[in-house]
């Protein structure tokens, strides 16, 4: 479960996200939609403190992930990120073998037993439907895989850490339509076991896969949420006039 309270994100003096209060229920897919450059990705990366990597970024307000305050100084970002998996727009497997892509982080987090590691590898690759495609070449470079396979490997890599939450930043937008459909089906299949947040440009996709929708809009140079609720309600009866125009395809 993810909850934010009056969350604002700044890059230096510039505000990127303003006063976002948001809730993503456990075990559901929540889609975040809106035009490009309105702070969706920034919002997403503030949830697992990836904003720490940008020296000028600063966060105000509260983020609660699994009942813990994300900004708590006693919790290391590494520990947080272990239970919050993240998938990026461009598939970014490491330049190493498929096996090591999955096992590197698991080993780092304390699992050394080879048999256990191989078991985890097989089970997550099965979860993402990649096992049959790659089981004979686990020691080949991950960069030899196709774009869609790479993205599924990245999802498997995140699942291997047994997270409870998955953050996905436009996971299908760099893929061709067929690979995109495969990954979309995969995301749907993960729904029961994980709390999923997915940023997408594709309204049809949001409508197909999500249970909840939050819509971002640029207001005075910073992103705000202007509409939020169950997917069907939001799409059929949006409250905010801008949201209505956006869904109807007449704005943004």
């Amino acid at each position, binding site marked *: 479960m993810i909850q934010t309270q009056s969350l604002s994100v700044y890059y230096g003096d510039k505000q990127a996200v303003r006063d976002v209060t948001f809730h993503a229920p456990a075990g559901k897919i929540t889609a975040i939609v809106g035009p490009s450059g309105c702070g969706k990705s920034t919002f997403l990366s503030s949830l697992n403190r990836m904003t720490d990597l940008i020296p000028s970024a600063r966060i105000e307000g509260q983020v609660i992930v699994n009942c813990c305050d994300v900004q708590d100084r006693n919790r290391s970002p590494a520990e947080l*990120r272990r239970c919050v998996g993240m998938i990026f727009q461009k598939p*970014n497997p490491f330049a190493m073998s498929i096996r090591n892509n999955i096992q*590197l*982080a698991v080993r780092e987090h304390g699992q050394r037993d080879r048999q256990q590691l191989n078991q985890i590898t097989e089970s997550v690759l099965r979860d993402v439907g990649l096992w049959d495609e790659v089981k004979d070449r686990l020691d080949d470079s991950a960069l030899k895989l196709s774009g869609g396979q790479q993205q599924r490997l990245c999802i498997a890599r995140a699942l291997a850490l047994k997270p409870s939450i998955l953050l996905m930043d436009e996971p299908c937008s760099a893929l061709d339509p067929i690979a995109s459909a495969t990954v979309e089906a995969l995301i749907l299949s993960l729904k029961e076991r994980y709390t999923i947040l997915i940023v997408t440009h594709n309204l049809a996709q949001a409508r197909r896969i999500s249970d909840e929708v939050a819509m971002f809009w640029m207001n005075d140079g910073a992103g705000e949420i202007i509409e939020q609720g169950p997917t069907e309600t939001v799409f059929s009866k949006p409250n905010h006039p801008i949201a209505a125009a956006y869904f109807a395809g007449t704005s943004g």
Partner: protein
Amino acid sequence: MNSLTDRLVSLMIGSAAALVAAVLGWVLLDILYRGIGDLSWEFLAQPPEDAGRSGGIAPIIVSTMLILMVALIAAVPLSLSAAAALAQQRHRRFGWAWIASRCLDVLAAVPSVVFGLFGNAFFCVALGMGYSILAGGLTLACMILPILIHTTEHGLRAVPADYHYAAASLGLSRTTTFFRITLPAALPAIAAGLVLGIGRALAETAALIFTAGYVTRQPESLMGSGRSMSVHIFDMAMNVPAGDGRANATAALLVAMLLIINAAAMSLASKASAKLSGQTAEDMNSRQYV
């Protein structure tokens, strides 16, 4: 009128460029041509005789390699570690990383003869090493350090941010991220820089005359004095009457080694850029508009 000027300028630029290439090609081929006749197995395997006029340069090759080895052993780990710190830092004006980089820029531009002065005063006299392979190698290490750090830092920075984001999102520590992900990805670029540093060290003369010395004997240990190939060329050309022949042969050998080293650096560099982006290093974007 306009197109006449245009053609005239093209002609001038073209001929200047051709002149540059011709002269540079002339120097290179001339050196190889003059020296290649004297190169033989005996030349490589025998000690010099008659002040170097006959015999070979075997002990000189050994000294050169020992000096190079000392320089690399001292400079490579330090440069890798320093570059790892600098590459992770934004170089904010007057921040520590910025200041360190400017210091290294100045160090890179210190004339080699001044390094010779420093090496003599510091390693030979103050640390009591005397004229020795060790003093010469350490002086060279100071000289090549800025080049190694610069190329390594560039190599590390060229690793796509995607890798860092992926590593951070998996909760990997900075240490693991560096050793398992960034370093392997940057390895060809780092190797290319290393090869360039070796080339620079092999070419160096002025810094070695007063640190490693110019004894032609084979050094018995790192504390012994030894003459590098570059110093040998200088000595044969300037101080030994009728030493030209051996100087030319040594120069041809040195240039041939540098040609091989250069080719190695280029293939590593293109491998590096292919590994990270799948493109060649040349960015010729602006060409199409002119």
